[in-house]
């Protein structure tokens, strides 16, 4: 129960080593699916579930898998895992599954998942691996939803359109119309808009990081020890 280590894992996953914004992994689903908040949320949560299960399982089996076959075994675990998730989504979230289409099985190819399995889960205890999967997944979802919100607002003028896909019929009127009578900005919905939007979000993150680094540095200067000019000999 090492709380400070848990906090480090959480911060790494959500911000410092965010798989989408820093490691730049999983960009294919990120760019293709992030044209609305609900689509982004759906794929992000599916990816998070996949990450949690694959990290946990890889950590559990890490003592029993010899080094030369570890990658095929990881791929097997991830593929079986994502197939099960896809079947469950097809059964219980059918309309969302139809809209996300091929990108659900493509979660298998998301480099973030095999990346975390190889770099972290195969070398760390189960509780750390579980949390790493959870927070890397949530960080990825956060990036997806941020991009999805940006593209939906600029491209269609709405937010949370088609919330019924995830939350059921009563969510049909959760749609927020940000601009009335909005003509729409097609570029935001198309792939180039996704790239531009992602670039902007990464730029904003870098600015925030730079500001956070500047402040402690200013303090350091005032605490600098000034050598005494009157040293004895």
């Amino acid at each position, binding site marked *: 129960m090492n709380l400070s280590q848990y906090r480090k894992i959480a911060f790494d996953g959500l911000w410092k080593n965010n798989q989408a914004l820093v490691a730049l992994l999983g960009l294919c689903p990120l760019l293709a699916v992030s044209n609305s908040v609900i689509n982004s949320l759906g794929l992000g949560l599916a990816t998070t579930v996949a990450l949690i299960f694959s990290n946990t399982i890889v950590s559990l089996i890490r003592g029993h898998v010899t080094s030369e076959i570890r990658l095929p075994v990881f791929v097997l675990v991830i593929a079986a895992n994502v197939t099960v998730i896809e*079947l469950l989504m*097809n059964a219980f979230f059918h309309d969302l599954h139809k809209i996300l289409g091929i990108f659900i099985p493509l979660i298998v190819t998301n480099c973030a998942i095999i990346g975390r399995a190889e770099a972290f889960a195969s070398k760390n205890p189960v509780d750390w691996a579980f949390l790493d999967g959870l927070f890397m997944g949530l960080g990825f979802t956060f990036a997806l939803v941020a991009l999805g919100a940006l593209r939906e607002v600029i491209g269609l003028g709405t937010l949370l359109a088609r919330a019924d896909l995830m939350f059921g019929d009563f969510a049909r009127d959760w749609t927020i119309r940000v601009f009335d009578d909005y003509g729409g900005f097609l570029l935001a919905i198309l792939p180039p808009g996704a790239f531009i939007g992602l670039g902007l979000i990464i730029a904003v993150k870098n600015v925030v990081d730079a500001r956070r680094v500047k402040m402690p540095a200013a303090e350091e200067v005032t605490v600098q020890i000034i050598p005494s000019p009157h040293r004895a000999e």
Partner: protein
Amino acid sequence: MNRLPKPVLTAAAILGLFSVFGTGLVALVHDKTEARILENQRQTLLNSLRALIPVDRYDNDLLADAIEVNDPDLGTRKPVSVYRARKAGQSVAAVLSPSAPDGYNGEIRLLVAIWADGRLAGVRVLAHKETPGLGDPIDENKSDWIFGFNGLSLDNPPEGFWKVTRDGGVFDQFTGATITPRAVVKAVRKTLGYFALNRAALFSEPAQSGVDSPIEE
């Protein structure tokens, strides 16, 4: 044959074990969800059909009372599914799934519902690859254009006017995307023509089993 070194055997055994486990798990979940998934697919198709033919206009099982037909006028070489709606044994309407093969970016798959008297109950686009923002107003979620077909028939508008306005007809074309609406208008008219020629057979043909859903899942 020399004995294989132990590490190789162990690795093979571990891989084999994981394969069996993984495949077994997937097979189990597949088995447990199969019925539900099939029901979801049926429901999606039924919802699409009901959007065109209201529930109170028919009393038969639409999905069971279906046939497949083949005709070049329906725009595809693949069999076209036809769902018959009946009330008290009388033919009420037929819903066909033809294609417009000459869309800008390829085939546009349609659902065309025709009342027994030949008037259109409605048209919907099931799948298309037209350019977003230019050709996609044929999609009901993007514009109301597709609802303009409701109530029309072979002689309403008269033959020469079953075209987009640029070709001298009555159908709105989209700015910068004439090819897309032109393809859909042509396909709908051809389907109406096919229906007029084959009306009796379409309703009297006995239901077939295993009719493919036009909605790709």
